[in-house]
């Protein structure tokens, strides 16, 4: 006689599965490495897992896709008892990008954030001329001789740079 015991799903397994869910805009990085998944826990009263996610930028169109991708990933693993919660505070920051995520970005051709998000705080009483930004390393040729062409790139989370040496334009994932 054999009794088949189904392995109980726990939070750790869910984290692992979510590590395989890619960001829809930047498919080389997972939503966990991007810091979008804030919490996984079990609500024993509702008999449900709660997955707390946070949007990167409030207007980011990828947010809805990410929620749908999480749902299908969990369902593919046979989990039906879960709900997604949107968590706005604390606000998402690039400081939550994992080291693995940063490396993957660079290899993909996107320069990862150079400094911590705190450096970005604006002093509204002294906004002066556009100053030279911190040197951002070109993800293609590693030159630090690069120039900002726009604070806003192909998505709200990125700025546009041009390398002055290899002449290639590249995206910079801005500290936020």
């Amino acid at each position: 006689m054999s009794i088949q015991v189904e392995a109980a799903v726990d939070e750790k397994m869910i984290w692992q599965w979510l590590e395989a869910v890619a960001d829809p805009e930047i498919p080389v990085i997972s939503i966990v490495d991007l810091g979008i998944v804030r919490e996984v826990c079990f609500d024993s009263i509702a008999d449900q897992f709660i997955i707390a996610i946070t949007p990167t930028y409030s207007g980011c169109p990828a947010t809805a896709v990410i929620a749908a991708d999480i749902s299908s990933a969990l369902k593919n693993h046979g989990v039906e008892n879960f709900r997604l919660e949107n968590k706005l505070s604390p606000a998402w920051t690039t400081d939550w990008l994992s080291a693995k995520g940063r490396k993957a970005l660079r290899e993909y051709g996107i320069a990862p954030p150079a400094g911590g998000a705190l450096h970005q705080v604006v002093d509204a009483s002294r906004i002066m001329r556009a100053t030279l930004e911190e040197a951002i390393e070109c993800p293609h040729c590693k030159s630090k001789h690069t120039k900002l062409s726009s604070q806003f790139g192909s998505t709200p989370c990125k700025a546009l740079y041009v390398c002055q040496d290899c002449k290639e334009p590249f995206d910079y994932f801005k500290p936020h």
Partner: protein
Amino acid sequence: MNPNPLFEYLLRLGDNNLILAQRLSSWCGHGPVLEEDIALANIALDLLGQARMWLTLAGEAEGKGRDEDKLAYHRNANEFRNLLLVEQDNGNFADTMARQFYYDQWNYLLLGELQQSSDARIAAIAEKSFKEVSYHIRRSSEWIIMLGDGTAESHTKIQQAIDRLWPYTGQLFDADVIDEDLINKHIACDVSRLHDTWLKNVTATLAEATLRLPTTQVSAEKQGAHSESFEALLAEMQILPRTYPNATW
């Protein structure tokens, strides 16, 4: 007094961002250079995302089952609570930048204060929006300096824009009876208290830009009044869901 000041207050926050986002979106495909076209669309997207959060919360505060879409698409002009400044026509690039500059300088201070709101939902939206508006304020202020201290032509155009939009800035600091109750409960921010800091910061940037601070009188229009072109803006924004109320993607 309005029976639901919180609903009214959240509509104001939502409508300001929604209407400015709609105006900015019209630049898409028409920007002076590609980078600026993309930047304007990105800023519009940020503001639209913020509008969605405010309007969703407004719908909850109202408690009549209206969601963000219902509020954005199924209200008439006289039910919109945005500031006159944000609905002003795009005009030329200088007009758009001057409008953005006045608004960003105000919005940045407002969101800074709202992060301390006693309503945790308002504080959370403000915290999120504040980070995004930090980029907006830097960019619009830098453009004011570039245009003001640029060529003779850019200087003339940005000075005209700064002067033309100035009267609408009075309304930014007009705290009224809707605000009063919420200010006492530490839910809302008293906008009249933002004026001096705003003026100081705007004056500093204009000086750096070699521009003149306007001296004309600011207008005292109440919130909820609209310009003639506002109807046309709404018509374009609302036509699809109004024509096909049950349309889905």
